[in-house]
């Protein structure tokens, strides 16, 4: 195992970096996929101005959407946890 000699702290930093990289790559590929579909209807000889503007806006809205979805899911997880705790305390 190549990493066996790494210091633990070093290992943790490396893992965190790899996770961050993987997250960024995933975000990038999803964003490209979605914004290509939204903004490029008929691929022409080059990206024209309106397509470029659409892509810029699409990227910003994609991030807004991601953040909102993330917040909504976070709230839901919290509500479900509270619900579970209250049914557990009813059982006791």
């Amino acid at each position, binding site marked *: 195992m190549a990493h066996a000699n790494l210091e633990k702290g070093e290992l*943790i930093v490396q893992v965190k970096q790899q996770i961050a990289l993987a997250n960024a790559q995933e975000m990038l590929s999803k964003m490209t996929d979605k*914004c290509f579909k939204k*903004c490029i209807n008929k691929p022409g000889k080059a990206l024209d101005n309106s397509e470029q503007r659409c892509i810029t*806006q699409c990227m*910003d*809205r994609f991030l807004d959407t991601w953040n909102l979805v993330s917040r909504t*899911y976070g709230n839901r997880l919290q509500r479900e946890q509270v619900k579970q705790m209250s049914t557990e305390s009813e059982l006791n």
Partner: protein
Amino acid sequence: MSDFENLSGNDKELQEFLMIEKQKAQVNAQIHEFNEICWEKCIGKPSTKLDHATETCLSNCVDRFIDTSLLITQRFAQMLQKQSGGM
């Protein structure tokens, strides 16, 4: 993950770190899934900002998708139970 599990074998701190990161990755993957589904449902032409109606659509979309998933899981489990009970 199995390489990590061997490596972290009896190191509690490392194990905990990896477990938390694993959970974070699962939540993150789930957000990506919801995001894809709800983007398709709620976003028309991208504009200069998310309007209020779109925001409502997105958050309803996430909650209803979870409701749907819970409902289907429950009913599907009942169907399986009935099926195996009838045999």
